[in-house]
């Protein structure tokens, strides 16, 4: 399993639009991907679960990836948190 920490670069945090994109991204991989904030973990197949974490700009989250395509998934997740969120 791969675990990475990310600081949320989008000032508004994970709102509907980035959340939609992240869920779509996660669904594109076979690996099980989940996200954790303040001890609460949700699977990245649920938009409601993700939004209910109320992730704000500047906060830190952990993302766990496990499965046959976890390396490719990690690359995509990295890009999402490090690049895409920055440009929002």
């Amino acid at each position: 399993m791969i675990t990475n920490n990310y600081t949320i670069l989008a000032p508004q945090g994970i709102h509907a639009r980035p959340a939609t994109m992240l869920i779509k991204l996660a669904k594109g991989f076979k690996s099980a991907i989940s996200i954790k904030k303040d001890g609460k973990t949700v699977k990245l197949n649920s938009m409601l679960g993700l939004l209910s974490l109320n992730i704000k700009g500047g906060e830190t989250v952990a993302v766990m990836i496990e499965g046959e395509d976890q390396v490719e998934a990690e690359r995509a997740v990295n890009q999402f948190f490090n690049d895409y969120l920055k440009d929002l």
Partner: protein
Amino acid sequence: MKGIGVSPGIAIGKAFVIQKKEPSFIGILLTTPVEKVADTIRFDAAIKRAIHEVEQLKSTLSLSEEDSAILDSQIELLNDPEIRGNVIDKIEAQDKNANDALLEVIAGFVEVFESMDDDYMRARAADIKDIGNRILKNLNQSAENKQTTFEPGTILIAEDLSPSDAITLDVKNIIGFATQIGSQTSHAAIIAKAKGIPAVVGCGSALIEIKNGDAIILDGATGLLVVNPDKESINQHITKRDVFKEQAKHLKSLKDTPAITTDGTRIKLSANISNAGDWPAVFENGGEGAGLLRTELLFMGRDSFPREDEQFEFYKQVALHSKGNPVVVRTIDIGGDKHLSYFNLPAELNPFLGYRAIRICLDQKDIFITQLKAILRASVFGDLKIMFPMISNIHEIRLAKNILEEAKAILRQDRVSFKADIKAGIMIEVPSAAVTADLLAKEVDFFSIGTNDLCQYTLAADRMNEKIAHLYDPFNPAVLRLISFVIEQGAKQSIHVGMCGEMAGDPLATLLLLGMGLKDFSMSAALIPAVKQVVIDNSWEKAKGIWERVKGMHDSKDIIEYLTEFN
């Protein structure tokens, strides 16, 4: 009637009232496994149809990227495994029918979002209600006949507009809408603003009194709603509407226009702000960052000094909402006419010449260091700069910078991250600082000229005293010479010079200051378009010529007269 004005503009038209049926519980329990399977299938089919509906909406309408994204997130929510999972659980374990199970699940999520400490997230509760209703409608197959075409000049009256309602608004004929519930961040508000439709939300239950065909005046700026107005009121508002349309057109045309003179000099126009909530107005007026963040608001209206964490949160919010624009944070400027109930400042004969601003901070180091640490910690979230007010000599700068270094050292020791090379500058508002600008420039990263105090100190004229109001005059040659000297010395030593006093927002002074070489003006957000207009209509060459002429004038009366000619 009054609500929250969320999208400015005046609409005068006829009411169309949208009645919404409240979803209700059925109460029937499922007793056999067959019934449960049947309801599960029914539920899945309803979701499928609901998604199909939204996809159709998406493909048949030409939507902006933003509206399209809203529908995408609706599809994502409809597909959400948490909703389906919880509904199936209730059917299986609690014998609920699909209708009731869905209502309970939606109510649960709505509660979660409504209790969040974030306006945006709270407003998302409406999205969840919306998708709940959409599934429910499909579950019960009640083919709700939705009116999709309206008479020209219709003002919609509804309890609330769901995102899909709001997006599909027939904007050709709908000229405004009013809702019972809602806030600045609800979808209805966002979309009204994006589409430029005047709208008032949160009008409360008084709105149900309105009937189809009632004449309505709606003011989306003030939140005013008049039902069946008299002739005079209608005429008044027609004039107001036309004026607004003209102005809006003009200001809107300037918002994205860069502030460049006709000969290509780029001028920076930013805003003076007091907290993160001021940002929307800044950006709406085309402001590029904050040339002054007053921090007094954080210290006022409370019983004790705000702690470091609380201050940090305040600065962080400002930084996070700055969209990457620079923010000049002025350290606390109390004393003078600004007092704090919990901080006992002895009465003074001359408070403006007394114990205030940086003088207090250098004397009571703990107050200062707490604020500096909080600003430093927030500096990783945006482009923050620190500015010390009321500097009158070089010694104060050195002391303040030492304390800043001390604050950095503490953070380093605690392994807290901050921007190590954060820029530190001073306000030039005391004549002694202006006169020695050449010396002070060697010690700091930037100057910001505070014309209000500079003017009253230079002319020894209390600006609150009406009897001597005529003496308080920023166009007095003495004040102009000081300002020009500061700008000139800043340029010579290659440090940045801005202005954040009232003069920066006075279109009459714009060309004069530009001619002196000032390229960074910070003012109330609302003043930006007018100053920008002056900038884009003129050349830097012309501005220099104006300053050359003014330099030779002896009396501010002549100066003001001469400048008025150009406006």
